[in-house]
């Protein structure tokens, strides 16, 4: 086996030590909004967010498309040597810097296996804690916050509402 493949194998999930931590992680995630009140991922991953669920489980779809880049086999998400898993930023400043038109962002709670990165993380399990609509005051947004809140069973805030930065203790 070549040195290259030995290095690749070291970063495969079964060879990584997942350090136990005491509590779930909070982070900030971006979605696009389709059909007014459906959340969809902004990346090319399979849609899992459009239907409301108590929590969401990440599965790697990338290995099928380009398996050679991260271990060539099916693996549990987040793969240590992959880019799979549910992405989130570490703090609200970072997520706000990335928000685009017709997007929604929100506080999320993550657990299971998590790859902590420089500006955020990739997680195995995730659920939204609350959502923030940047263009909340638009005339076209009438009733959307309420419908979004009812669909995902979480509070929906305007960005002008200071409560959106609150992280539950």
């Amino acid at each position, binding site marked *: 086996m070549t040195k290259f493949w030995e290095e690749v194998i070291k970063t495969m999930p079964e060879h990584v030590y997942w*350090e136990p*931590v005491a509590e779930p992680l909070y982070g900030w995630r971006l979605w696009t909004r389709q059909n007014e009140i459906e959340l969809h991922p902004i990346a090319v991953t399979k849609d899992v967010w459009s239907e409301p669920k108590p929590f969401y489980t990440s599965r790697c779809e990338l290995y099928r498309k380009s398996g050679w880049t991260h271990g060539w086999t099916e693996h549990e998400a987040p793969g*240590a040597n992959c880019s799979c898993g549910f992405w989130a*930023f570490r703090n609200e400043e970072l997520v706000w810097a990335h928000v685009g038109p017709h997007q929604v962002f929100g506080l999320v709670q*993550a*657990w*299971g296996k998590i790859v*902590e990165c*420089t500006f*955020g993380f990739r997680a195995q399990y995730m659920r939204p804690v609350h959502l923030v609509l940047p263009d909340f005051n638009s005339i076209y947004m009438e009733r959307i916050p309420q419908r979004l809140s009812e669909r995902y069973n979480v509070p929906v805030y305007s960005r002008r509402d200071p409560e959106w930065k609150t992280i539950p203790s």
Partner: protein
Amino acid sequence: MDIGIPERYIEAPAPLDIPTEEEPEKVAVPAEEELEEVPA
């Protein structure tokens, strides 16, 4: 969108209100007095 490069691999517990294991399916067992006697 960029979250940077991996720095640490952790495993976090589920929030307390999330069930960690699926509950076994409950099978209704009729009470003894509800069982009908079958004629011989």
